[in-house]
């Protein structure tokens, strides 16, 4: 679909990421179409557009991130336009436009976790996984380690404020994380 030269390309220029080797490349398979249709069917008739987010979530689970090629396809499935899908993709912080590492670390930086020490924990985790904390900016909040195994992102409130600092690795939440626990977790995930 690369002949589709519209504004999307400019908005969603992909930054190459070492994490890509851990995820399959986006490709429209019959299973994927089937899944998308299933998600669209959840919503009332004529409201296919509602399925954009669920389909994006599914793509993220399968392929790690939403690449520009996926957007026109999502639009097609949801009877929307590619630029509308791009608008959604660029809005939400939870949608990746760059491939994350195999293990994606999210660390909460909001007030309660910050008071519990997450701001000191962040550089420590970065040093453990070989990432420069300075490369995490507002424009590019996620940093991927050179080996592609890890990616890290400082996020806002994970809604577990009483038990900070909170860290999420892929889908699992770890609370009251200390430096020692970081060491243990990283060793544990490396073994997987």
């Amino acid at each position, binding site marked *: 679909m690369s002949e589709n030269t519209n504004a999307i390309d400019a908005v969603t220029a992909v930054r190459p990421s070492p994490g890509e080797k851990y995820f399959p490349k986006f490709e429209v398979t019959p299973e994927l179409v089937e899944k998308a249709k299933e998600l669209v069917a*959840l*919503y*009332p008739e004529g*409201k*296919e*557009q*509602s*399925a*954009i*987010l*669920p389909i*994006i*979530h599914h793509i993220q689970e399968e392929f790690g991130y939403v690449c520009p090629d996926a957007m026109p396809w999502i639009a097609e499935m*949801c009877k*929307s336009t590619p630029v*509308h899908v791009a*608008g*959604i993709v660029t*809005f*939400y*912080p*939870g*949608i990746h436009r760059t491939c994350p590492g195999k293990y994606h670390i*999210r660390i909460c*930086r*909001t*007030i*309660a976790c*910050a*008071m519990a020490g997450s701001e000191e924990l962040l550089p420590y985790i970065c040093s453990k996984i070989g990432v420069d904390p300075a490369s995490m900016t*507002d424009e590019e909040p996620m940093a991927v380690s050179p080996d592609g195994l890890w990616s890290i992102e400082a*996020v*806002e*409130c*994970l*809604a*577990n*404020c*009483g*038990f*900070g600092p909170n860290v*999420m690795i892929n*889908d*699992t*939440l770890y609370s009251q994380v200390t430096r020692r626990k970081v060491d243990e977790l990283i060793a544990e995930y490396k073994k997987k």
Partner: protein
Amino acid sequence: MSDITYKPGKEPHPRETRRIFRNIDREGYDPSIKCYIKDGGYKTLKKVLAMEPAAVIDEVKKSGLRGRGGAGFPTGVKWTFIPKGNTKPVYLVCNCDESEPGTFKDRFIVHQDPHQLIEGMIIACYAVQAHYAVIYMREEFPEGARIMQTALDEAKAKGYLGENIMKSGFDLKIVLHRGAGAYICGEETGLINSIEGARPYPRIKPPFFPAAIGLYGCPTIVNNVESLCQVRQVMMMGGEAYAAEGAQRSPGTRIIGVSGDVKRPGYYEIISGSITYGELLYDLCGGPRVGRKFKAIIPGGASAKVMRCDEVLKGRNPDGSVRNMTIFDVPLDLDSIAQHGSMSGSGGVIVMDDTRSMPKMLNNLNRFFAWESCGQCSPCREGNPWMLKLSTRICNGQGSPEDVDLLKDVADNICGRTVCAFGEACSWPTQAFTTKFRDEFLALTKPINALKPHSPEAAEARKFLTRED
């Protein structure tokens, strides 16, 4: 119930009344439907399905139940806002986008007791005659989403969802919709736009509220997770019995999440108004950490105005006379703290002790709000990064005393000038912090800084304005 045992180390405090959180951290309890039914689950639903929908609404109205999402709007009254003679389908949306910093209650319901929410939702849907409901869950609960989906499938298999629920002729479909990490989706109209597959920009609320024009242009009721669980509680206890307990204007139990500098942070379910902030922090939470003193409390999630612990408040005695008190004497219900200029909101209490630098705390909150502003209204989109810039500058010791006034001025010009309540939410912390802890802000500033350029770019540009001869 005394036959419930809790996991070691997770036992509720004796002053707690566990209702909604009854099964949280309970020994041998899992989120499966088997466990829930064994515990008396879905019995209330059976009772409700034999009633008239209007009678259910009346019961909830009688109970005086107020929403637990933050605004505290009476749930039963909200349900009656569906226009009379409506012919469009009615939708119910469960707001599970718990993203207010300091609030962490819905997480545990979703992860440990999902069927309680489903039962509450079915009851609410029956009351407003909605046949399609959506649970909007935040993206940060991937495990919660899986647990919830399993619970929904189980409930469907058992005939509590789907067509002709328990042979009552009532149909209901519940869909789980996951967000993608945006705070603004907790705002009900933003949430509706997000479900519709649009950018979650909030809609202008008066004249049309979601109960009149909501999801897909149809009447929509948006309720918080805890509110819906409370609905089940109301129907279980009966409206009058529910209203008889707790504070007069906000009856029932409340779940309070305490975070920050206390010995035992965590969640506590208490009868509304039965204890004060002081009792909560000193008895239930064990007081400040060793050798420290409480300094400030944010009583209702990050957007509530901060309260100084040494601030003298004017309390009113029952006989009408005025007495002096502190925040520690204020009862924990929905309204009491509002009389002293803050709000009890979603029940997230953030406690700060004397080791905390207030400008730093505010800077953290400003970063949160600058990051989460959706960008629809200019005052909020531009004002938040500006406030962040100012507070960062002050924290770095590069601010001038005027910056503190400017900071408050920016905040003053955001609130009330935006489509949604985010404008208020982001400016209240700044207004409160800069007025109540002004000294601390000023101590970090230097008058000479007013004359200095603040960035390398500005310094570069300024070079050309200086005559060198």
